[in-house]
């Protein structure tokens, strides 16, 4: 018999509690509502503590916690599904789909800039602060779908099913999120750095 509690004791109560802030940040991106986000984080931490003996130590704590958070967020989102499906595609910034980036022939109006070796940014704390601010700037439902995809690691089929958004619209929202973030990082990080 293995003693599952052994791998668990390392990060019990206090450690889990310590991740409250990260979980809250991830939940906020998807729910954009402090009370709701606090609720799902609370439920996640509770579930994690109660299910601690099921944690095998094979997944990282990160994967384990975000996995639980994902289900709690999905539950929360299910309650407001109809609202998302109808709102999402008509959200701010829609209609143009960044048309101004392209000329009438569909070519880049301005050549996208070369970020060189962007990986070096990943070693800088400041970069992640900029990334967070850029994400905060995304329209609500765009941010929500993007977070489900990139933070929770959900595939688009799962996202469609849980939000009631069609696969096409899901693709459109992810494209908008990536484009907005690309432009934001370009301006606030990569652009600023090359000018210097």
């Amino acid at each position: 018999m293995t003693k599952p509690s052994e791998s668990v004791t390392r990060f019990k109560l206090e450690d889990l509690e310590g991740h409250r802030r990260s979980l809250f940040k991830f939940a906020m991106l998807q729910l954009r509502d402090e009370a709701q986000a606090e609720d799902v984080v609370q439920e996640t931490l509770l579930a994690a503590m109660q299910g601690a003996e099921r944690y095998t130590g094979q997944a990282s704590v990160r994967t384990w916690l975000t996995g639980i958070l994902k289900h709690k967020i999905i539950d929360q989102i299910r309650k407001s599904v109809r609202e998302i499906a109808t709102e999402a595609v008509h959200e701010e910034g829609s209609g143009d789909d960044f048309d101004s980036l392209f000329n009438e022939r569909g070519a880049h109006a301005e050549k996208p800039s070369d970020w060189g070796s962007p990986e070096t940014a990943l070693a800088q704390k400041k970069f992640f602060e900029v990334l967070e601010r850029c994400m905060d700037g995304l329209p609500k439902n765009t941010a929500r779908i993007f977070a489900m995809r990139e933070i929770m690691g959900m595939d688009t089929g799962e996202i469609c099913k849980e939000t009631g958004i069609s696969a096409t619209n899901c693709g459109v929202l992810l494209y908008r999120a990536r484009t907005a973030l690309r432009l934001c990082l370009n301006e606030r990080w990569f652009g600023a750095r090359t000018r210097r």
Partner: protein
Amino acid sequence: MSILMVTCKEASRIGSEALDRKLGFRERVLLRMHLALCEGCRRVDAQYRFLRRAMSEWVESSFEKDAADQR
């Protein structure tokens, strides 16, 4: 412009979709052809891939920061 070519606008869309689903044969070929010829779109493509990596590192670093703050 031949019907075998996609525009930069279309290539940007397909490039984003490539991160979410397996592209069909035609889309894949069109995208690859376009990228081979267009430096601007290669940059966009690199930026998409960097963004994915940055998001994953951001999640990781948030958790690490939590842990560090507790010490």
